[in-house]
Structures are given as C-alpha cells and as structure tokens.
C-alpha cells in the first residue's frame, strides 16, 4: 500500500484556566490537497484532540467569516485556503486570545475586554479583505 503523505500542523494553544503562557502543539494528519485549512483543524479535533478550540460556522469558504486566523504568518480565512504540508496556525493577531484560536472580536472595537454578549456594537470585525480565494500550489 502506498504511504499516505502527511502534513505537520503546529497550533498555538492557550487555555487561561491551566496555562501560564501560550505554547505550540504539533499534530500530524494526512495531507489532502483538496482539504482546506479549516477542514484540517476539524480533522485534528475529530481524530486527535477534542480539546482544540476554534470557530467555524459555514465551512463553505468566506460566507460567515468567523473562522479568521493566521496561517504561516498570513491572516486569512482558513475555509478558503487549501491546507499545506507544513502549517503554523495562530490566532488572528490584534485581538485578545480567549482560548486556543478563539479571539475576543468584541474587545478590539471597544478598546478593551468586555462581555461580548452585552455588546450592541457588534462583536465581529469586517473581514471582507480576507475573502479573496488563494491560489492552490
């Protein structure tokens, strides 16, 4: 049988309940050229680590825009970009990290950490600039 190509995924983890500082955790999953980065995260959650936290709703490529994060140093929507054989995944910069890849979208707009549920201003930034599809390598 042919050996499956694997992808190395380094994810920045942080749970304020147990970690004093963020750290990177490495996972290995099968590389599939037609899987998106969000699919890859979901696969890690599903098959390796149920404690991994990330957002995602439409899973369809830039319709809901809640999954935004940073892959290999670039801010993007992971549901619009195909996975790579080596990826470093971090939370979207510029926002306080609540857990793992989840940031407080509400905090930036209000200039501090607050109760997202009480916000009337909206808790989500305009991420339209992240919508363009990225070329498949």
């Amino acid at each position, binding site marked *: 049988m042919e050996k499956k190509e694997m992808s190395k995924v380094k994810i920045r983890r942080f*749970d*304020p*309940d147990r970690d004093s500082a963020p750290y990177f955790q490495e996972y290995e999953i099968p590389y599939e050229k*037609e*899987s*998106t980065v969000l699919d890859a995260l979901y696969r890690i*959650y*599903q098959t390796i680590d*149920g*404690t*991994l*936290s*990330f*957002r*995602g*709703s*439409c*899973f*369809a*490529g*830039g*319709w*809901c*825009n*809640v999954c935004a994060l940073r892959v290999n140093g670039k801010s993007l929507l992971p*549901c*619009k*970009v*195909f996975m790579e054989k080596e990826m470093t995944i971090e939370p979207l910069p510029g926002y306080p990290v*609540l*857990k*793992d890849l*989840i940031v407080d*979208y509400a905090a930036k707009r209000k200039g501090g950490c607050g109760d*997202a*549920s*009480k*916000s*009337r*201003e*909206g*808790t*989500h930034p305009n991420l339209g600039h992240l*919508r363009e*599809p990225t*070329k*498949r390598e």
Partner: protein
Amino acid sequence: MEETKIQELEVLVIGGGGAGAMAAIHAAREVSAVGLVEKGIFGKAGCTPMGAYSMCAAFGNADPRDNPRVHLEDTIRQGRFINNQELVDIFTREAPERVMELISFGAKFDRDEKGKLKQGMMAGHSYPRACFFDRRTGPMIMGTLARQAKKTPQIQIFEEILIVDLLLEGAGPHYAIGLRWADSTPVVFRASAIVVATGGGAQVYAHNTTSIDNTGDGISLMFQSGAELADMEFVQFYPTTVCAPRLPGLGPTAPAYLTIHTGAKLYNALGEEFVGKKMPGWRFQATRDILSQAIYREIIEGRGSPHGGVYLDVTHLGEERIKRETAFGGYFDKLLRLGVDLTQRPIETTVSAHFFMGGARVNGRGETSLPGLFAAGEAAAGYHGANRLGGNALSEILVSGARAGQYAAAWARERRGMKGPETEIPLRLQSIEEKIARWKKRGSGLRPIEGKRCLQGIMWETAGVVREKKKMQKGLEALAALQEEVEKRLMISPSRRFNRELLDAFELEHMIRISSLILTSALARKESRGAHYRIDYPYPDDEKWLVNIILQRDGDRIRKRQEKVSFSHLKPEVQKIDGKEGNE
C-alpha cells in the same frame, strides 16, 4: 452552586439568522425588552448568510403578469399541494412589502437601468421573481438585519449561548436555559413569549449544504416541550452541489449557477443527458425534488462520476458565453486562479441535504400549539409543503419572522406583570449540571463527534433521497442503539472554556431526536410526494395522502396523527408522473 441570575425579558427570540433577527426587530416595535440569543456570532451564524443568490417576491418587474397570486399557485403546485395555504397566501402577499422594508434598513439589491429591482428566473416559478445582490444576497441580507437589530435599543443580543432546555409553564412566563460557550456557565431567560427561529437540521445528513450549527436544536426543544410538529418527512436535497473539484469560496450550491440561463449539459458517466432527454426545458422546469432524485438514481445505479456525482458541462459554450450567460460569469477568473478551467473540463456535481420543509406546526401568527411559543423560518412548517422552490426561503424568513415577532410581542404585552412559578428552574439547572459532570467524568467512551458522524451516516443511508420501509426501520433501530450508546458512554473533555465537545454533545441529542422524527414520519407516509421519495410507493396518492403528518410527544413515545389539507386558495390537480398513477 452559585445562583444563576435570571434575564428578564418580554420576548425571547432563539436563533439569530434572518427569521430571528426579523422577529426581534418587529417585536421591539411593541415591547421594550426583547432578547435575541444566538449559538454563534450574531450576523454571521446560521444559514441565512449562506444564501447565495435568490430571494423571491412577486414584484412583477421582469414580467408584468407576475403577482402574489401566481407566486402562491407556483408555491403550492410545486409544494405538491400539502402546503398550509393560509401561510402561503400570507407569504406571497407580504413578501414584496418585507423586501421593501429590508431596503429601508439599507439592503442593496441589483437594479436595472430604470432603477427597478432586477428579477431572475428560478426553476418551478412561472415568471422571473428572484431579487438578488450579485451572488452574495444572503450575507448582504444578514448584515443588514444584524445592523438594524444592533441599533434597536430594545433588543439585547446574547451571543455564543446554546439553549439546552425550555420550560414552558401553561400560559407563561416561559423559561429558556442556555450555556455560555465561553465558560460553560448557565444563563436563564424568562420571557412572556418565546420565538424559536433556530433553522432546520440538515446536519443530520452526511452530505449537506448547511452551516455546521444547523442541528435542529429548536425543533427538538419544541417537540420535547410538547409542541406539535408537521411534515418532518420532507427534507429537501439540493441537486447540484459541489463535488469535485472543491470550490472554496463559492458556496456549496455554486454549480447551480452554471445551469441558470445557459445550455449547460448535465450527463452521467456514459455521457447520457439523463434529464435533458426526458425534459428538454429542465433548467427551468426541474424543481429540486425531481432533479435530485434523477441525479441520485444515476449515482446509485453506477452511472456516476469518479467522485460520486454526475457531470455538469459548459465547455461547448466557450469563455465569452460562460462569462456573459451563466450566473457563474463573475467567478470564471477566480476559478481559473484555483486551477479550474470551465472551458476545458466539466465539473462533477452531486446531491446534498439542504432544507427542512417540516418543523413546528404554526398558524399565520407564528403561534405553535403551545401558548406563548412561536416559531418562524425553517423551524416552522407549512410554507413550502413537500418541496421548497428556489428563492422562497430568504423571503419567507422575513415574512414569518416579522409576524412571529409582532404577535409574540402582542402576546407579551397582554401579560405584563404576570408572575410564573420558577420552582423547577433550580432542578433543571442541577440536572443539566449533573449530565455535563457525567460526560466529563468518563475517561473513555463515545465522543460526541463520533456519535454525530455515525448518525449522519445512518440518516444518509436510510432517510435520504431514496427511501424504503426496510431501510427506514433499520435506521430507527440504529438510532435507538446510538441513543443507548450516548446514554451509557458519551464523554467529553473537561475544559470549561469554548469546549466544542460540550456543544457537540447537546447537538447530538437534538440530532438523534429529530432524526427519529424524520424516520417516523417518512415511514408513515406510504406514497411519494415532492422530496419524499419511496421506491416501495413510487407515486403520489392524492386520495389518501393530501394530508399533513403531525407529531407530538407523548411521554417517551411519539404520537402521530393526520390532518387533511385545507384547499382554501387552490384546489389540487391530478398529478401524473411518467404517465402512470397509483402505487399498487
């Protein structure tokens, strides 16, 4: 246990998609304390932002012969005559008004050179009546409604809260118990009226087009509370969804754009145009039920494409015509950048679960069978009958949402100052807490995501596009076995913050419940009609089955009854399929 503060509201809307947002906005015109609770991020979650193209309302801009009456007839005829005709009448008459209201909130639609709303043609409609905003109509509508709701001071928005229990006490006030995803703490809402606008549950199928939060929570909670449900057997399968190649960014139903306005060819692995042969005008005539069943038959009978679909081909049109004539035009260059050249190769397309025609049985005020409990949007039944027409969802959610919000507020206003018993709340909170503790304590067992995958497989195989008695019975048995596994072995990770497994666990319970309701209803309907296709009863049977199947909880059992459709607006016509009639 720390005491949980109760959020006091007059109207609570559960679900922040288009129907929920509209309900909140309309309720806020009548009462001062409206809450909108959303499982994800308001304005982003649910299926409304995924609506790519069409929102149907009979303005008659493209063809002056169009009007709400024709829209009603199309909707009922293509709903195979089991729609609630009173609801369809309301929907088709009020849809243009609600679209104008949306525009007053700042919505932008494509317009012609005279400034009139452009209207596109959709299969099953007599005239072009789809309003649209490029191919991003849904996100535009949701963005508009979210902005409007956020600037309405009477509306308080609660995000990333999963409702796990409803406590409906007679005429109210009612309670809803939620869990914050951020830290797992409970939240209790008290309101005179509750509007459920949580959408459908197509996530119970392995292949689906919906956002992952579309897990039928509200339908399940309403059933648990004793509300009547209707038409649960009718699940729409979308015929032309993305199969191969993946088209990230274009949405799961994108291949459909190729079929609009063009000579796109749809053929199987043998090169046979299996729909076009029988139905030359299929692009505008073949509604989703017919097309899904035709495509699915090719796939299961071994004439499918390598990735489990069929071919959709526009190579013969050439670049210029593809760009000019297909609704895909704007995407042509984007696709080239992704390495997909439509002039060189066909794409593969397949069938996926898309929409629930069934849900809570409601009247024109959005009232369910329980006092003070309202439902709107995909969580409510009756508007679309046995098959929803393309473009009717985005406009229906506006109409049904506005009505449910308005009447819920009227209900709440009459009950100002009424007190209800809250004795059961601590008990319910405790039982939720104990359940979570049980899940967290188990060091090994069934993970909720594994349970979901198992369930999605069961439903795809046994309650999918093509159904039959034995398979459906096997499906019910498999669900019962899964339910037992869940009770004995479900486990989740102990983390408190943003625990995805905690969401998955509660969603799995809802998904098992609504799945068994779909199968129960589908087994009961011994005919084929619209999206419900049975090979053991392949034809519609108008003598026996112009009825709605109503389900209601009876302890641990499901009570079912039939209700005759009232033909108050349009009498049924004889339906013939392949020139034959009758199942015997």
